[in-house]
């Protein structure tokens, strides 16, 4: 095996890793916002909203991420929606910002479904006595959610939510297919330039692992500490 290409191409991996992390961060932020709204709708009393949220979750979880990516990437163009180009971001990423956003949005929409389920199980893990106590004190249903249920649910799901970030980092490698210069895309570029099909992939795998492993370890530690505080 020959890894001498690294001396020339190491910066490719650095740029790719930066773009992957950036994409995952933005996607998770979008995912958490979508997931929170969906979770409130899903556990709420309004049957119609609950149905819509459930349908969203089931559809996203029941279709391949690749298909979703293509639908967003080509579909948005087809119906004439184009993200404005932000020169600053394009400069930072080294690729077209509008293309990048197609990846971010797909990953965000996808992650939202999973985050919804994380929040929902978090809300349902809160003892019924908590909301009964709150209601008996005269708190309305929304206030009970806001002050009693959601703060406790968020604390419970924080480790799982962090894990979702790890998942998004890994799954996001798929956006390389639409030409977003993430870690995977950069690795492919190196493969093409060096005519070495194998070794650059190994390096990419190592970089992905270096990104996710410390994060998983950190989350496990946070989880342990939280459990000790109970």
């Amino acid at each position: 095996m020959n890894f001498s290409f690294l001396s020339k191409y190491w910066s490719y991996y650095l740029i790719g890793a930066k773009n992957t992390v950036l994409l995952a961060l933005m996607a998770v932020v979008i995912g958490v916002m979508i997931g929170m709204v969906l979770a409130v709708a899903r556990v709420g009393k309004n049957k119609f909203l609950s149905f819509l949220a459930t349908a969203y979750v089931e559809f996203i979880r029941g279709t391949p991420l690749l298909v979703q990516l293509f639908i967003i990437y080509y579909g948005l163009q087809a119906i004439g929606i184009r993200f404005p180009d932000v020169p600053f971001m394009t400069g930072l990423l080294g690729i077209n910002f509008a293309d990048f956003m197609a990846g971010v949005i797909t990953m965000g929409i996808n992650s939202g479904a999973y985050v919804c389920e994380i929040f929902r199980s978090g809300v349902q893990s809160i003892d019924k006595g908590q909301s009964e106590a709150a209601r008996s004190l005269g708190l309305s249903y929304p206030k009970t959610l806001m002050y009693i249920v959601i703060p406790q649910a968020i604390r419970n799901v924080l480790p799982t939510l962090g894990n979702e970030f790890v998942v998004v980092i890994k799954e996001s490698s798929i956006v390389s297919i639409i030409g977003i210069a993430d870690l995977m895309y950069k690795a492919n570029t190196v493969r093409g330039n060096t005519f070495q099909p194998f070794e650059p992939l190994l390096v990419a795998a190592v970089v992905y692992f270096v990104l996710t492993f410390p994060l998983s370890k950190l989350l496990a530690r946070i989880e342990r500490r939280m459990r000790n505080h109970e």
Partner: protein
Amino acid sequence: MSEPLIRVSGLKKNFGKLEVLKGIDESIFGGEVVVIIGPSGSGKSTFLRCLNLLEVPTAGQIWFDGVEITDRSEWKNGGLDAHRREMGMVFQHFNLFPHMDVLENIILSPVKVKGLPRAEAEDVARDLLEQVGLTDKIHAHPAQLSGGQKQRIAIVRALAMKPKVMLFDEPTSALDPEMVGEVLGVMKNLAGQGMTMAVVTHEMRFAREVGSRVLFMDDGIILEQGKPEELFNAPRNERTKEFLAKVM
């Protein structure tokens, strides 16, 4: 006699096919301490939980302070919450909010529901904490408290809303025996101050000493009731006799 604080008429509650309450007519007057006893599964807790509509009755009406709270048109625009804030409730498992310290537990509802200024709510909280002897726990978290302390805080939390009636749902059943006394002591003081109380309990001594009236419930109805000395010394109903023989 004056108007009752709570009046219940034809109260029924089903859980699916199971009839838990089979028709209850009862009044609770201001200043009374009504103790509800009976075997488990007799519907005592369900009856109590219907009073502040934590359980929605299947049939029947409840008036609180002259207003029919089972009237669903009352529930819109926070009518139900407005009634609930005047009825304090204490639960078997305390149900303190574990993510808040003691002070925050107590002032949450006065501040967020009543709109009391924070400083004023804190004064009320300090006052009440002193009365139950837990001033030093003001910044403790629930997880750091014993069961008896938790329940005393739960009582204070309910009292901070200045309710017109206090509902106690087996307040000492989840406590270690040595902690039962401190909670009953607080409840006794409260009764001494003239608070209207409805108490579901297995503490017969408390019923006898503090209760102004004892209701014996069995199989979803109030089978017998009377002053504690009457009911405990000379029960008329066979089922009551049987139950008392077992628990006394």
